[in-house]
Each structure stands twice: as structure tokens, then as C-alpha cells.
């Protein structure tokens, strides 16, 4: 017997949405095995990891808080990935966005203006864009691979953060901890479900999903992005400007990552600290793929990924498991997704290994 991949004449529409479900199921099954290896009761662990975090209203609000940056970044990345622009430096853009937005909060520390928050948002977006502009410039001007440059800039961005909070921005009244002063209320995102941490950033993320959906489905920018990703020659034929699309994709993804960074520091964190993001910029890559590079898919994928963060925390507290389990789950999920994606384009056939020539072939 051999497994054969038989190309489908048409892409299987059902499988486009089915394969993430297959991947999630496979991840859960592997999770059972993983927990057994780690020496905890698999079913209990799965419950702790995936159910208990969302068994209360509080849990759901926390889920949305965690999903906010993931969804924001992943919507942006989806644009890029569809155009074959591989911005994998969102973590760096997030960091610089947080610094730009947060920097404004520190600069106008005593300001009592309603304009401060919007200004911080714009600064965050611009910061992320500026950081993404470097790979965009290098790619369009010097043909330099954006994967490597955007990633290198993550490390540089994190070092900028570290430098600022160890030096110029260190809180004067923080007992020498490497972090900034706590932002004032004017610089903090309002919470819209009282008694929780759920801030308006989540609403912004939802608005971005909706906008992204419309642009992707109906606007010429979405069309150009898709064409250049699927058939770059056809994009040239149609007269689309490739460099412009590369810039657009990087500006959208960089800007949204920067916004996510600003929302993190001005929302749940409230200050600038050494670790702003537990790898949201990288996890968002998985979110984008899991969401089929579609804004609405990204919304659900972002919530699922947020759950793995909450689950990791819960497993750490209740089961004493290292919260690195989260990373393993995320990686596995992406593997299974890529593997099950084969179902979209191919039919899998179990076939006896075909003889080269059947000697009993029809005789004339």
C-alpha cells in the first residue's frame, strides 16, 4: 500500500475551512499524549488548559484582552502574506509602536487632554510603520529579503526597549526597576466592562477585522494583494505596481502591529516594562495562517490562540506545568494545519503501489 496525493481539479472549498478544524482536533489529540508524557491526567489537563479559562465572564474578558493584539497583528500580516510579503518582524514593530505610543504618554505625563490617547494611537501606528519601512525600503530599493531584515529588527527593537527603560525612561520613583512610570489615566485605555480588564482595544480590533474584510473582499487593494501573491506576472500584466503593493502590505502590517503595541502598554500593562509582549508578534503568524489569511478567520483563530496563553497560565498555576506548553501547542497547531492543508489541493488515496505495466492489460 502506498499513500498517493492525487491533485484535485478544483480547490476543495469545504476543505479550506475544514482543514483548520482537522488541525485543531489533531492538536488536541496530541495534547492528550503530551500531557500523559508530562505525567498529568490528560483529560484534567485538557480541561484546565482549554475549558477552565473560559468558564466565567472574567475568563472571556481576559480572552478578548489577549486576543486583541493577536487579531490586530494577524489581520495586517494576512495582507502581507497574501502578497507573498513575509513580514515576520511584527514583534519588533509592536515593540517600537509601544515605545512610540508610550513615549508620548511619558512626554506629556502631566497632560490632561482627551487628545492624548488618540495621539498615542497615531504615534503607535507610525512607530510600527517606521520599523516596517526599513524592510520595505530595503526590499524595494535593494532587493533584500524582508524575512531576514524584519526579523533582525525584532532583536534591535527589543534592545531599544531595554536601553530606554534601563536609561532615559527609567522611572524616577521605581526603586531602580527597569521600567517606566505608571501612565496616568488620560494615557490609559478606558475599560468598557467594569470590574474587568477588557478595554476598548478589543472594539478597535473588531473594527479592524471588519475593515480588513471589506478591503480584502471588495477593494482594489485587496485584489492587487491577492493577484501579486498568486501570480506576480499577472500583476505586472495588469499594471499593478509591485513596489507599491510591497509598501502597502508592510505599512498595513507594521502599523497594526504598532497599534497593538501601543494598546498593550496603554491597556493591560499601563507602563513600559522589559517584556511588553509574550511573543504576540510571532504567535500572530500562526493566527494568520490558522485564520486562512482572512480577517474573519483571523478573529476566531486569534481567540483560539489567546486561549492557549490563558491555558498555559492556568496549567502553570493549577498543574504546575511550565507555561512553555503554550508554545508547543501553538507550534503543533501550525504543523497540523500545514499538513491538513494538503487536503485542500489534493485527494489522499490509499492505493496498492501501482504496477508499471499490468501484464494482464486488455488485449486487442
Amino acid at each position: 500500500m502506498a499513500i498517493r496525493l492525487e491533485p484535485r481539479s478544483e480547490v476543495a472549498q469545504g476543505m479550506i475551512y475544514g482543514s483548520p478544524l482537522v488541525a485543531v482536533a489533531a492538536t488536541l489529540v496530541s495534547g492528550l499524549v503530551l500531557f500523559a508524557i508530562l505525567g498529568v491526567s490528560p483529560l484534567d489537563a485538557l480541561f484546565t488548559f482549554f475549558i477552565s479559562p473560559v468558564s466565567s465572564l472574567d475568563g472571556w474578558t481576559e480572552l478578548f484582552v489577549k486576543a486583541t493584539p493577536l487579531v490586530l497583528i494577524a489581520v495586517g500580516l494576512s495582507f502581507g502574506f497574501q502578497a507573498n510579503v513575509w513580514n515576520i518582524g511584527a514583534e519588533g514593530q509592536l515593540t517600537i509602536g509601544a515605545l512610540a505610543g508610550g513615549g508620548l504618554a511619558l512626554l506629556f505625563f502631566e497632560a490632561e487632554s482627551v487628545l492624548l490617547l488618540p495621539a498615542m494611537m497615531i504615534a503607535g501606528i507610525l512607530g510600527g510603520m517606521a520599523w516596517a519601512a526599513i524592510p520595505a525600503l530595503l526590499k524595494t530599493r535593494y532587493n533584500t529579503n524582508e524575512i531576514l531584515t524584519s526579523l533582525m529588527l525584532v532583536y534591535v527593537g527589543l534592545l531599544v526597549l531595554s536601553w530606554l527603560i534601563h536609561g532615559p525612561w527609567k522611572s524616577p520613583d521605581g526603586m531602580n526597576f527597569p521600567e517606566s512610570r505608571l501612565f496616568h489615566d488620560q494615557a490609559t485605555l478606558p475599560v468598557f466592562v467594569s470590574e474587568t480588564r477588557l478595554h476598548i482595544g478589543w472594539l478597535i480590533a473588531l473594527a479592524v477585522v471588519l475593515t480588513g474584510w471589506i478591503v480584502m473582499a471588495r477593494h482594489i487593494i485587496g485584489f492587487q494583494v491577492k493577484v501579486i501573491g498568486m501570480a506576480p506576472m499577472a500583476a505586472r500584466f495588469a499594471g499593478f505596481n509591485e513596489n507599491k503593493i510591497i509598501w502597502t502590505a508592510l505599512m498595513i502590517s507594521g502599523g497594526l502591529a504598532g497599534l497593538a503595541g501601543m494598546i498593550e502598554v496603554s491597556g493591560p500593562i499601563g507602563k513600559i516594562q522589559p517584556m511588553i509582549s509574550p511573543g504576540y508578534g510571532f504567535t500572530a503568524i500562526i493566527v494568520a495562517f490558522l485564520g486562512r489569511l482572512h480577517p474573519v478567520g483571523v478573529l476566531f483563530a486569534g481567540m483560539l490562540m489567546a486561549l492557549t496563553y490563558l491555558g498555559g497560565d492556568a496549567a502553570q498555576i493549577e498543574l504546575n506545568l511550565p507555561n512553555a506548553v503554550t508554545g508547543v501547542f501553538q507550534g503543533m497547531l501550525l504543523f497540523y494545519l500545514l499538513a491538513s492543508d494538503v487536503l485542500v489541493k489534493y485527494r489522499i488515496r490509499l492505493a496498492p503501489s501501482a504496477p508499471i505495466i499490468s501484464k494482464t492489460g486488455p488485449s486487442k
Partner: protein
Amino acid sequence: MIPDWLTPAIMTIVTASTPLVFAAVGEIMVEKSGVLNLGVEGMMIMGAVAAFAIGVTTGSATLAILFGALAGLLLALIFGLLTLNLRANQVATGLALTLFGLGLSALIGHAFVGETFPGLPKLDIPIISEFPIIGPLVFGQDFLVYMSVASVIFAGWFLNRTRWGLVLRAVGENHDAAHAIGHPVNFVRMMAVLFGGSMAGLGGAYLSLAYTPLWVENMTAGRGWIALALVVFASWRPGRAIFGAYLFGGITILQLHVQGFGVAIAPQLMSMLPYLATIVVLVLISHDVNRFKLSAPASLGKTFHPSQ
């Protein structure tokens, strides 16, 4: 007179460069076969954690090294199955490999944080190894350093002097033609991918066994990505890759020493140097589109669909 600090400084450059040599040479082989595996970072960190865990538990450096290579190879196997057999997107799968490797290594390494490993034994030839600079540099290294140099020579010889090397280049240059001529494209690629994985694993093993020697989460700190950049820098030639690796190793050590000399620059800014240097080098290498295209394997990153 030779200042006292010079010899140890040069020795640390060797230590800092060796992981890059392994990873870059492995990836050159992979890319020469037409496969772009962006998971070097993930394979390296898995090599690092596996080697360290085995080293600490068994006390055997040999076993540690073997398991480091094996861990990289297993991760590469996943990559190979996904991209070659299931024809998944190479970029996405490579990223997945890195994310997965970082997560799994943290999980495995959790129990080993704070442990130490005595390091790798160094060659010690009486008298000769005591020669200033040259002595320790050439005759006073550990086994893996010699192996990294040997791997460069091996890769150069294999690619340019052997039939299988010729076939591997052909597969990376034009997989359809290689298939039409009758070469087993996916088999060749899988072998290259597995080789690349074990080399990245060795690079990681060297980090945790000799460079630090400690286990720290995320300890590869982008070295896998720098190795990928080195492949481009080296125009896919092993000889140039070792040169590039030592250049980067040098920059890394240089910035540490500059900090040591009390230069009034924030350490964070100095630490940016290797990453910024990588970007600069990439720009310099790739800005000439034609030269770049000619040296890059023409089928790099393209999925091979055997015609029906």
C-alpha cells in the same frame, strides 16, 4: 609583544563562530538542493536543549553531541515530510519549525535551568598547544571546532567534486529537468534537509555544551537567522560561509570587549551590532539583482510537483 587579552579573545571568536559555521554549512546544502528551510533557529535550539539535557544526565559529551544532532535531524524530518511529501509552503513550515522548536525546547529545558556542564575537552598537545596564539588557536580547540572546519571542506568537496553533489545542484537548479532526467528529486532534497537539520543541531549543541555552557531559554538568540543570512552572504559557497561566520563571531566578541574596555556606550546599543551588521551585509549582497539571481539556486523555495 602580544597583549594578554588577545589569545583568549581570539579563542572566544572561534567559540562564538563555530555554531554559525555548522548551521550555515548545513543550510547551504539544503538550499543548494532547492529547499528553503527557515527553521534553522528551531533546529538549533532543539539541538542545544537535547545536547545539554543528555550531557547533564549522562555526563557523556559524545552522547550529548549525538543527541544534539539527532534532535535537529528529527525536526528537519518533520519539515521534509511536510514540504516535500505533503507539499506545504516552505516559508510557513520553516516558521512553524522555529516556533515549535522554541516552545518545545523551553518545555524540555525547564528541568535543566541552572544546571551546568563542564564543557567540551580541548585538544592539548604538549608544547605545540602552548605556542602563542597559533598554539591554542590551531591545536588547542575542542573536537567540534575541528569538525566544523571539516564540514566546510566536506561540503565544498561534495558539492563540486562528487556525482551526488552534481545531482544535488541539478535538483536545486531545475527540479523539473532533474526529474525528467530521472533523478529522485524528493529523495535528494530529503537527504539534504536531514543533513541540514543535523548540522543545525550540532550548532545548537555547541552553544549549550561549549559556548555558554548552560541552558537558557531562547539561548540561540537569532543565531539561526543569522546563519540563514550568512548563506546569502556566502553566495551559497561553504568556503565563504566559514569566513562570514568568523566575521560575525568577531563582531559579537568585539562588542563584548568594547563594553569591557569601559567605552561609554550603552551595552544594549553595542549588542545591536551583529543584527545591524547582518542587515547591512544582506543589502550589500542582494542589491545587484543579476549577480544575486545567478548565485542563488534557481528552484530555491519552489514546491516540486512531479508532472503526472
